[in-house]
């Protein structure tokens, strides 16, 4: 089991987690032992340039973010298909490559459409 790559990943995961948690724990210990945490209403209010924060930060955002996310998602999926193809690329014939080209071009068409529609213009 130790030879499995996932075991290594798991060990690294634990190590990284510990790397993050250990100092946080130490900091917590420090606060417990020496430097008592003294929260108060002013200190623990939201920072806003020294003023009292007005309104909420959790407001409704613009859909531009979403549009970009869609295109990103599509290209992410494309990459997932492209990667195995790329691995096999050196051994493939022209026909196979053309079929992949068609795949990519179809997605590029979507991009081009979005570009032409002005979706890619961040305002």
């Amino acid at each position, binding site marked *: 089991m*130790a030879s499995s*790559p996932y*075991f*290594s*990943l798991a*060990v*690294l*995961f*634990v*190590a*990284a*987690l510990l*790397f*993050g*948690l250990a*100092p*946080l724990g130490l*900091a*917590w210990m*420090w*606060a417990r032992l*020496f*430097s008592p*945490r003294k929260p108060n*209403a002013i*200190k*623990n*209010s*939201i*920072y*806003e340039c020294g003023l009292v*924060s007005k309104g*909420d*930060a*959790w407001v409704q955002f613009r859909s531009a*973010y979403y549009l*970009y*996310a869609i295109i*990103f998602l599509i*290209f*992410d999926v494309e*990459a997932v298909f*492209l*990667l195995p193809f*790329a*691995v*096999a*690329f*050196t*051994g493939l014939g*022209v026909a196979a*490559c053309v079929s992949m*080209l068609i795949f*990519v071009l179809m997605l*590029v068409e979507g*991009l081009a459409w979005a*570009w032409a529609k002005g979706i*890619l*213009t*961040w305002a």
Partner: protein
Amino acid sequence: MASTSAVTGADQIFILLRDWLVHLLPSALRPAASVVLGAIAIVAVFPGLFALTTVFERKGLGRMQNRLGPNRVGPYGFFQPIADGIKALTKEDVVPFRADAMVHFLAPLVLLVTVFMGFAVLPVGRNMQLVDMDSGLLFFFAMGAATELSVFMAGWSSRNKYSMLGAMRAVAQMISYEVALLLSSVTVVMIAGSLSLTEIVDAQNQYTGIFPHWYIFTPWGLASFLMFSIAATAETNRSPFDLPEGESEIVAGYHTEYSGFKFAIFFVAEYLAMFALSGMGATLFLGGWSAPLKFLGFIPSWIWFFLKVMCAIFIFIWMRGTLPRLRQDQLMNFAWKFALPFTLLNLLVTALWRFMGAGWLRWVVCAAILAGAYVFMGRMGMHRKHIGPRSYRYAE
């Protein structure tokens, strides 16, 4: 291979050290212990490198700005990061009452862990890789993709307007450049024929005469490398793409409300991401741990790897010392309207490269296509936005 045993000794010193240490244990535990040692090495070396880098960055930036930089804390100021660490450790941890405390706590951890995970597949030297997987590259990018969420968590949970704006910026920026990052590395995969980073390095670790077969020395490789570097800079939120932390507008971005060691973790993670992406860039395009010239092969491989990473870091610092920051729309436009089409074109050029076979023609054709496209797209972009040098008139 053909290297002398002395070279191997220096080269493999860490491997030998690990094996020696592991052999002290009962044999049942040995494989596990060797993995644990590897993981500990990653968790120890890169943060150490981070500490060193912060000093070098502050000193180097200082030098660019005609000043000395930190030089008083410890010899030549090299204890500065230790002091910063102690300070961060003992600093009060403020969590706003209105913040989402749980997510606020988790965000830096998630970021740190995902960034660390990326190192698992990086070959830092010959045989020095925690895991070699069939889909190593994909794993790296999968981990990279997961950092976006932690940035969002940090910004959202703080419930601060600047944090929120910074997080939205950061996520938009990271997803935009992730596409370019992925697609520019696909070219390397196409030629190397593997997602395993060991194999990618091996493919480059050959020499014609004394010159190595690094992918950066091909037209498509250079183009990919450029795009990869730009995208990596953007992914790590470094200048000129440091908008999410753009302090001139949104104070400190998504970590505005973080103090104490949680903030330090963001700091560490940013640098670790820099190392990871520099290391990945070096692996993909600069031959990983292979020596740049054949006769330099006697220098241990891990030294080469770290040298390449540090060079990349120096360029990061250099850019930070020189360049102003882009604006959000320019950044997004650059990603989608310049970087993405260019990398897509580069995919095509790479395919062309293969199908044209050996010979000088493919160099000329590929280079011409890419250079032409670069100049054309650059011109178009600047022309469309009416950007360019100006002349001025005077009144007497």
